[in-house]
């Protein structure tokens, strides 16, 4: 589904990661872990065109990001993203937040877009909040709307950038349960997270990042129970 070849990224001369190559298959569930500030989020943003890699290429379902405009937009259309700080459109109510992309990118009729948005609101457990504005919602509710918005375009790939980091423990639970439901669907799910229990329960593979990129990777159970390399062992021993 996603093929990454020799992707490197630097900001202001400081290397974030170098020469990352990876393949993520459809239906795979990937957790990206590592200390804060090692470029996990930047890597995730390279997977849907929010950051342009300095070198290398990312292909999603064969379409190259930052290829031709049409190819780039086609590649993006396979992905949906959930942000750490929710990033809901503050000027739109919940139902418009979810339906906007359907109406403007897929040219779905308003009737269909709003009907589908209401179904998604039901799925994330907020059917009565359709006319609420983001500022009127709790963090957990905003994040659930963020997930509904990412699901609206029915993407094959779902990217989660630390979706629970800005939430208190009770809100974390409500959001993680929604993500757990999605993890059971047939989608490629890539989640940057510090929630190792969630990674343990719902992901197939873990990528551990250090200052230079992917330091160690492997099946979730093996990575969590018997990591091989020093930094991974040290990081996991803190949990």
């Amino acid at each position, binding site marked *: 589904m996603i093929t990454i070849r020799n992707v490197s990224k630097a900001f202001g001369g400081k290397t974030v990661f170098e020469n990352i190559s990876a393949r993520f298959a459809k239906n795979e569930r990937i957790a990206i872990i590592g200390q804060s500030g090692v470029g996990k989020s930047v890597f995730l943003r390279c997977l849907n065109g*929010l950051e342009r890699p300095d070198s290398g290429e990312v292909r999603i379902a064969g379409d190259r990001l930052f290829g031709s405009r049409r190819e780039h937009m086609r590649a993006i259309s396979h992905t*949906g993203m959930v942000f750490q*700080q929710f990033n809901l459109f503050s000027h*739109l109510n919940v139902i418009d937040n979810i339906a906007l*992309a359907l109406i403007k*990118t897929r040219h779905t009729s308003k009737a269909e877009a709003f009907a589908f948005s209401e179904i998604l609101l039901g799925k994330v457990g907020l059917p009565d909040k359709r*006319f609420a504005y983001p500022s009127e919602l709790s963090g957990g509710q905003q994040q659930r709307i963020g997930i509904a*918005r990412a699901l609206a375009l029915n993407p094959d790939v779902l990217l989660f950038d630390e979706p629970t980091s800005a939430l208190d423990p009770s809100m974390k639970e409500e959001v993680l349960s929604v993500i757990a439901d999605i993890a059971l669907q047939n989608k490629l799910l890539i989640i940057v997270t510090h929630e190792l229990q969630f990674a343990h329960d719902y992901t197939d593979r873990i990528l551990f990042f250090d200052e230079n990129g992917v330091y160690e990777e492997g099946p979730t159970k093996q990575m969590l129970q018997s990591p091989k390399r020093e930094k991974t062992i040290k990081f996991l021993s803190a949990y």
Partner: protein
Amino acid sequence: MIAFIQENLIQNNAWYSILQGLLVTIQITAAALVLGTLLAVPVCMLRISHKRVLAVPAQAFIAFIRGTPVLMLLMLFYYVVFQSVRIDAVFIAIIAFSLNVSGNVAEIMRSAILSVSKPQLDSARALGLSRFAIFSYVLLPQASIVAMPVYKSAVINLLQWTCVVGYISITDLTRAINYMSTRTLEPFFMLFIGIMFYLGLSYLIYGLFAWIEKRKFGASHRYYRRNTK
């Protein structure tokens, strides 16, 4: 009281002169507002450009306009630029005030656009919205929420500053009131009427903006209103 009003306002046709002046004030304010705001759009776009060759001239234009009193601008156009051209003074006033508005509004637009947070634009890009859609449905609505209160003040300022057009022999509301004060020898009464007109116009503008600011963005409001009846 009625006799007083009849004597000072109706019998000598003062009301007609004041009304004419009022119309000139409205004409200059409305035309300068529309033209100035339209001109502000490209000026703002150039100003926020990352290319210095585009941004620097726009910055210089804004600095010149904002640093020059509008009365100076008005006299510059009337006595120098259009001195040898037979052209209506109202037209000159509209040009001067349009330029003044464009410089100020371009800055209002710039700060409003820059106030839209990057994460909001990130979400729009992540959803695959086109540049046009991001501009129209995310950037513009959010920037307009920030800009509206400042823009409202700019409009009120414009209305009040048009009172200087009397310097280039235009009979606007202020000049008409001044003229009638001298003719009727009732300056307090005439100035009271003038102030009431300016206040009335200002409140009209406030009302209009209050109505605009109340409107809601997004398609759902109209859709659900129409389909839940």
